[in-house]
């Protein structure tokens, strides 16, 4: 009977708030991520890291949520929970855990070095793979959760302020202060409902481990905090924290406004070396057929069917050309006649494609004709209609890139229809480098490059990235793209864009619409 009552109460409280579990390790994205790097290709600043410590059930996650809510328009915020970092347990430890005889509240239960290394990766704008811990099984699972690209990171946990290595990573340290009896009450409701524990077990665990842990390890860390927040009625404190965070972020981005789109276009004098002399910019050797293909693709009178057919032919040739820059090693094989033949073999450990949506996928059919057995990831980058800066809206990268150790041995063929302002190219290369892909393992394959566009800035920032293109267009000028009337754009508002001349028109539109 008492259990039933408890459950009903919990249902009531849950209706009022989002389920607790969904609040941990969540990456919240709004409006896309603007450039976080300068024209030199380097990161402008690290992510802003907030550490939130405090007793168990003191309301740390709630505080973290409230901070996120108050930050509002910040592009990407990640909440990283200490619960993910419980150590991998031996069978004996698991047995103890099921008998509630394992001390989960001791600092030693947490894999602090891993916590710190995940956090350090995220702070430095790198990807990380967060371990997944199951409370039902009392064990760290085989799977991990990939995380990348947060501007603000909130690390929360009872020991969040305990480890000096972790503390050194925080830009702001918060301690959530709450009365012990309130924490116990919250703990009972949560553990019964969400972790399937019995009341007796919870109380025994509380007295045996939680309380001493709080007194010995958690409460003392309040001394390290920059700000102490009450566990309830804390809206003023939240307001202070979010205002401080917003100001910090503002100061960082003001110190170095990325304006690469326009900087290189308005400074043609910077172009002192012809592109043809760049050893890492490969222009497809000109042939009568290639000239003929480009003539068809450039003509405004070419119909859809022809445009698609010749685009596929061109992308096949480009990808074939690009593959000669992969690593090969000698290999001897036996032919069906029993004769030895000395040849070569591709030795790239991992190979994948990444296409920049939408127009990059116009190269995918050609890519698949040449490489049929590798993953192809995607990056959705759109230019902001206000200032032309690129916005990262979505990324789905191949598995070998998601893990740092394999990313370092991965060759990536990046696909996009053209390099005009170079903004999307710049952002996608930056993303791959942050994942650990080596510059000289990236081959950017594209139909057209604008001589006076962003290619100069791109080459200067990433000189070892290879670019394979069909041809170079000499001119780049400001144009106007008519907007489509429809959802979200009732009046068909157009936008200013940079167009290449002679160019191939809007390649994505011509290939897909």
């Amino acid at each position, binding site marked *: 009977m008492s259990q039933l009552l408890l459950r009903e109460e919990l249902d009531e409280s849950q209706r009022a708030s989002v389920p607790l579990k969904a609040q941990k390790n969540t990456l919240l994205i709004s409006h896309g991520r603007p450039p976080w790097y300068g024209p030199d290709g380097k990161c402008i600043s690290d992510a802003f890291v907030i550490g939130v410590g405090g007793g168990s059930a003191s309301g740390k996650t709630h505080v973290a949520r409230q901070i996120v809510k108050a930050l509002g328009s910040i592009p990407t915020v990640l909440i990283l929970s200490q619960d993910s970092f419980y150590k991998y347990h031996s069978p004996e430890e698991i047995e103890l855990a099921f008998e509630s005889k394992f001390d989960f509240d001791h600092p030693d239960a947490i894999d602090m070095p891993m916590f710190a290394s995940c956090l350090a990766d995220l702070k430095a704008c790198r990807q990380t793979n967060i371990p997944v811990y199951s409370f039902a099984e009392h064990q760290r699972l085989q799977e991990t959760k990939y995380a990348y690209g947060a501007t603000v990171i909130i690390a929360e946990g009872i020991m969040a302020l305990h480890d000096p290595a972790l503390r050194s990573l925080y830009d702001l340290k918060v301690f959530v202060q709450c009365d012990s009896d309130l924490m116990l009450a919250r703990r009972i409701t949560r553990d019964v409902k969400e972790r399937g524990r019995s009341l007796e077990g919870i109380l025994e665990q509380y007295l045996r481990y939680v309380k001493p842990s709080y007194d010995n390890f958690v409460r003392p860390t309040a001394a390290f905090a920059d700000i102490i927040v009450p566990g309830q009625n804390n809206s003023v404190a939240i307001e202070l924290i979010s205002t401080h965070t917003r100001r910090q972020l503002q100061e960082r981005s003001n110190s170095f406004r990325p304006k690469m789109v326009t900087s290189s276009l308005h400074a043609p004098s910077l172009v002192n070396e012809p592109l043809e002399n760049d050893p890492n910019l490969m222009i497809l050797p000109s042939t009568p057929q290639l000239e003929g293909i480009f003539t068809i693709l*450039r003509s405004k009178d070419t119909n859809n069917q022809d445009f698609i057919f010749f685009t596929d032919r061109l992308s096949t040739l480009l990808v074939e050309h690009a593959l000669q820059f992969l690593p090969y090693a000698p290999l001897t094989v*036996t032919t069906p006649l029993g004769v030895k033949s000395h040849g070569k073999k591709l030795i790239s450990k991992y190979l994948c494609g990444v296409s920049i949506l939408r127009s990059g996928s116009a190269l995918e059919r050609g890519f698949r004709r040449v490489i049929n057995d590798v993953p192809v990831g995607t990056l959705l980058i759109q230019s902001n209609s206000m200032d032309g800066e690129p916005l990262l809206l979505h990324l789905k990268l191949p598995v070998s890139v998601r893990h740092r150790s394999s990313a370092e041995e991965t060759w990536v063929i990046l696909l996009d229809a053209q390099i005009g302002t170079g903004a999307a190219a710049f952002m996608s290369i930056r993303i791959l480098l942050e994942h650990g892909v080596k510059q000289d393992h990236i081959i950017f394959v594209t139909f057209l490059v604008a001589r006076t566009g962003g290619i100069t800035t791109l080459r200067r920032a990433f000189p070892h990235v290879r670019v394979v293109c069909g041809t170079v*267009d000499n001119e780049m000028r400001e144009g106007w793209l008519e907007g489509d009337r429809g959802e979200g754009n009732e009046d068909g508002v157009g936008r200013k864009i940079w167009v290449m001349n*002679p160019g191939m028109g809007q390649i994505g539109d011509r290939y897909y619409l």
Partner: protein
Amino acid sequence: MSTNGVPVPPPQPSLLKTTASSNGTVPPSVFTLPQTAQLEALYTIIRDKDTSRGDFLFYSDRIIRLLVEEGLNHLPVVKKTVTTPTGSTYVGVGFEGKICGVSILRAGEAMEAGLREVCRSVRIGKILIQRDEETMQPKLFYSKFPQDIAKRYVLLLDPMLATGGSAIKAVDVLMENGVPEDRIIFINLISSPEGLRTFSEKFPRLKVITGWIDQGLNEKAYIIPGLGDFGERRYCE
């Protein structure tokens, strides 16, 4: 790349490194693909007797596509001016002249898919040539061509050029059907130096596009190291 739109001259005979051919010189009418490590890797896969049929198909198709692309570069183009979507004028080139493919059965058929990927809905004639058991000479058993073949450029398809016997016979048949010698382009994956020499001495004005020139022929007139029987591996094994 000629961005100013002036038509580019057709490719020049390849400056082939002589390591691939046993007697050094390559006839001037013979063109090969750029001998890159990547191309070598493709050949290594299709030469390997342990390569699966799926891989054999995929990688031989890749080579065939490159060969057809190279072959098409020997067709004439004319200056052509177009208007781009941005409204400016571009002086490029337009393709000139009708083409058709002719495959020597049965292995030559393997190259048709690659041809059609590059030349959409191109017409393809067929020709069956086998050795006459009495005379031991290649003999025409069957042929079927587009009616207007005499007015077309012909891409002759056969994956292996060993002695050159059947290829020479096929060209004879084409010329009997009114196709001039210099309008035929012979495309193959692997050729023997002996076969190439015999063939291009007989037809010096006929262009040959070959992917790789091997060491030579064995006593059974198979190309060494070669890749075995192309048609057999493609269709039957």
